[in-house]
């Protein structure tokens, strides 16, 4: 029955969106973390979504993998920092907080929409189960 498939599809999307929210949270949390070399600096993480054909024929979504941003970490001259290298530079993360905020809003909006879809589908399924019980 397709109505039950909707639950699988929406829940796969909810799982994917919450992974996205998770990476956004860890990116924002590490936005101001400094490191002593560009390699050690925190790189912004982003999930990659992919359509997946489920066993029941539904097209859900899954997280195919998490990519790390290749943007250059900006060097900061801060000789007093205990992490500074021999030239007095520290390397901060390449997280763009504005981008992350937009990601967060988009993820939570899509998550909400999927919850609404699930809620409506549940109501429809309940009404279908009560078919013919009224007067």
């Amino acid at each position, binding site marked *: *029955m*397709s*109505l039950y*498939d*909707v639950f699988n*599809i*929406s829940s*796969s*999307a909810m799982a*994917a*969106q919450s992974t*996205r929210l998770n990476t956004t949270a860890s990116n924002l949390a590490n936005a101001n973390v400094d490191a002593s070399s560009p390699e050690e600096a925190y790189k912004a993480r982003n999930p*990659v*979504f*992919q*359509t997946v*054909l489920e*066993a*029941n*024929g*539904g*097209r*859900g*979504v899954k997280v195919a993998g998490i990519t790390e941003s290749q943007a250059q970490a900006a060097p900061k001259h801060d000789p007093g920092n205990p992490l500074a290298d021999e030239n007095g530079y520290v390397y901060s993360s390449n997280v763009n907080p504005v981008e992350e905020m937009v990601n967060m809003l*988009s*993820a939570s*909006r*899509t998550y909400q*929409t*999927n919850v*609404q*879809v699930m809620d*409506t*589908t549940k109501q*429809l399924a309940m*009404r*279908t189960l009560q*078919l*013919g019980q*009224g*007067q």
Partner: protein
Amino acid sequence: MSIINDRLFGIHDDALILQERNLKLRAENIANADTPGYKARVMSFDQAMETALQTKSSSQAGSAGRLTTEDPRQMGGGASSSIREGFSVPDAPALDGNTVDLDKERVGFTEDAMGYQTTLSFLNSRVSGIKKALGGGQ
């Protein structure tokens, strides 16, 4: 039994199956709103309904048997599987190749949910009508 079923519910049982399929398609589009390269799918309800009715009338005449499928991913010949899906034409495709318009899909989903409920209430009134008839109007 199939003749009783067909006369009892008329077109509404086929309509319910199609509405259900429609809702599933909307849910798929909404779920893949952020998937790169995903193309939003739509189905023509009018065309699907017409095909379903043709299948119904030809199977009533006993001339055409329906294809059976063993896997939901296979295409069959029944009312629910004669649906032609197409790709929607986007107003503004995203740079990542995704063509889902989330606002449009939300409105469409609400619309389809109302359509499903309408069909359900038609079915409900059919059942209560039959009940009344069986009970002699009491």
